[in-house]
């Protein structure tokens, strides 16, 4: 490949010489670049010191309003004092080890599923992991058995709720999205039309309209006397929404499988489902792993929208903590910064991993 053709000459000389050569090439190459470099340095000098001063030097961890009033910098004490409210919402205080454990289990399963791409040995474990994990998480969160007290899901909140909504959303949307993608590729006009209309309608509207629909219209759809609670309605809305996006991801994968593979299945006299299961899907799904992770990331970020229909996910509990005492309200920057940092950590590492997977999966194609 061309990468080999233009390998840079090996750097020579002492460290200082190489550093000078490097900065000449990368920082001061011509007058325009010099101006850019100096401008950037000036910008950083203007931006960084006040932030460091605010966030670290003048900050306090003291979890009292009085302690925060004494300092000029950040009041991390707000996060410190309300940490459990922010992390777990209104879940009964003494039982909060349960959402913590559920969250750890869920993160373990997510990491395991993602790791399976790299370590094929884990692949067989994915489905059992979810089949066991989801009930375990439900038992931990709801309780009511094994001596755990029952906790209504209107008390759920915080980071576990965000993780549950987004990962359950993607897991349940997965088979539904796959069916929709196959439907869209189908030769049967009625099936194809139904799939296309569903996918395009859902993708054409914002998530918030689907959530409004779930929270306002679902109760009207149900027969008299049957009710489902707010959390479940939001979860169904998220699943319905994610399925349409996953369907398009899967379609990309299906289209990338060469025609000859479909024909090979036909010539072996495999039925449609056999050739899908044995030939097409293993190839197609491998291709769509990175975009599926990306869908999960955007779902994870979009789950914050449930705040608007009155659920307390991680962003909702930060707002709850800010409102818990009027004296805390002015420390919104600290609260939002904490939430942003957690979201960033999770999303950024998943995005990096997905980019890495994409490279890994292409290894076979490289010559």
């Amino acid at each position: 490949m061309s990468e080999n053709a233009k390998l840079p000459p090996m750097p020579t000389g002492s460290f200082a010489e190489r550093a000078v050569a490097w900065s000449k090439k990368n920082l001061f190459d011509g007058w325009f670049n010099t101006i850019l470099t100096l401008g950037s340095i000036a910008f950083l000098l203007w931006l960084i010191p006040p932030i460091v001063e605010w966030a670290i030097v003048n900050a306090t961890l003291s979890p009292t309003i009085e302690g925060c009033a004494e300092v000029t910098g950040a009041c991390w004490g707000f996060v410190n004092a309300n940490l459990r409210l922010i992390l777990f919402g209104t879940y009964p205080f003494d039982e909060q080890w349960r959402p913590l454990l559920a969250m750890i289990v869920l993160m373990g399963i997510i990491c395991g599923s993602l790791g399976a791409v790299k370590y094929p040995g884990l692949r067989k474990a994915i489905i059992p992991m979810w089949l066991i994990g989801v009930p375990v998480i439900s038992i931990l969160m709801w309780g009511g058995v094994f001596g755990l007290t029952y906790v209504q899901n209107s008390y759920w909140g915080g980071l576990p709720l965000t993780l549950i909504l987004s990962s359950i959303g993607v897991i349940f949307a997965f088979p539904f999205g796959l069916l929709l993608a196959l439907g869209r590729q189908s030769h049967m006009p009625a099936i194809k039309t139904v799939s296309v209309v569903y996918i395009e309608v859902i993708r054409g509207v914002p998530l918030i309209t689907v959530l409004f629909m779930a929270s306002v219209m679902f109760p009207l759809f149900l027969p008299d006397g049957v009710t489902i609670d707010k959390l479940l309605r939001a979860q169904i809305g998220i699943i319905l929404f994610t399925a349409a996006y996953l369907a398009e991801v899967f379609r990309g994968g299906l289209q990338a499988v060469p025609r000859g593979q479909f024909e090979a299945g036909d010539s072996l006299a495999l039925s449609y489902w056999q050739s899908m299961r044995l030939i097409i899907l293993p190839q197609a799904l491998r291709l769509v792993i990175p975009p599926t992770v990306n869908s999960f990331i955007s779902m994870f970020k979009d789950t914050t929208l449930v705040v608007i229909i009155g659920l307390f996910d991680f962003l909702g509990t930060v707002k709850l903590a800010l409102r818990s005492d009027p004296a805390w309200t002015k420390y919104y920057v600290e609260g939002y910064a904490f939430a942003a940092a957690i979201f960033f950590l999770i999303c950024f590492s998943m995005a990096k991993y997905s980019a890495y997977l994409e490279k890994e999966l292409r290894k076979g194609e490289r010559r």
Partner: protein
Amino acid sequence: MSKPQNAPGDVRSKGLVDYLNDENVRAVLYQIIAIGLIVLAGWYLVSNTLYNLEQQNISTGYGFLDLEASFEISETMIDYSAKSSYASALMVGLLNTVKVSLLGIILCTIIGTIFGVARLSSNWIVRKLATVYVETFRNIPVLLQLFFWYALIPSAFPHPRDALEPLPGVLLTSRGMYMPVPEPDNAYTFMAIAAAIACVIIYFVKKWAKKRQDATGKPFPMLLAGLGIFVGLVFLAYLAGGAPTEMSMPALKGFNIRGGYNISPEFMAVLIGLTVYTSTYVAEVVRSGIQAVPNGQWEAADSLGIKRSVALRKVILPQSMRVAIPPLTNQYLNLTKNSSLAVAVGYPDLVSVSNTTMNQTGQAIEAISIFMSIYLGLSLLTSLFMNWFNKKMALVER
């Protein structure tokens, strides 16, 4: 996938089992079953809904649109008061959505392009700064960003009494930004008409210039000529209208600022949040668009003796546009859809107004169906445009 027909010599009469084994017959059967199930489910949901609505004494239909809305909207682009109808309230909401989306699209394109190009810069520090910007803001939920800006703006700026005045006439306060605007005058209508006429003239001049260049090879300085025509005509209209100079200046009257044009904190929060978030995606689109053009294209232009600046404009950009425009349109659509988050900070966009309408009238299905179909219409229009554009820009293969 057609099944081979029965051979002519096949005299076996077809039984029911044979029919069920025929792939074509089965396909029809499956479809009938699928449609049947969907219709059944739909009928079940609709009948439940009608029953529930009847129980709750809610009438169905869009008749409520003509009723008096009786709620105020803080920001309106058309005449609206609490006495106006729900229909005009929704119109106000739609216009507010369009306003913030259009401005957001323009701003995020500019900012996104700058950061996209900066990520490819040969300058190490510029490249890293751009990367940090993109990675930070795309990995934080947009709603969190909106909340942050919405909390920041009112507390970062002073009370209207001691408003900051960074430029003469521009006031920054906790209630938003105030700018001087010209007093309404006929001259501005003239200018708008002149601008429209100028666009038509430019269109025809451009056609003529392309024809001439195709025939003779002589290029025509279209950019300069176009600017000249546009600015000249608009300026003439301004003079013809009597060159009004009166401005409405914002000034403190009592406890609040009157006059001028007010940009509310809600609007600013939504605009900044959406712009920053979407610009990170635009930056990635721009970057991959530029990277998609093979280096050989630069070299080809060089070897033809084309100047670098011309090569960029006539060789590289048109090709990267082909790659970049479809995902860019997607991002614009995402921004428009995300503008519905305005409901969370109280900017009266379409969803927010519909939400109020829904709460007041109880017409949930109707209100949701209205804003869903508007968003759907916008998406369909965009995909129509994208299809047209893709066809126009597609590589002409031999």
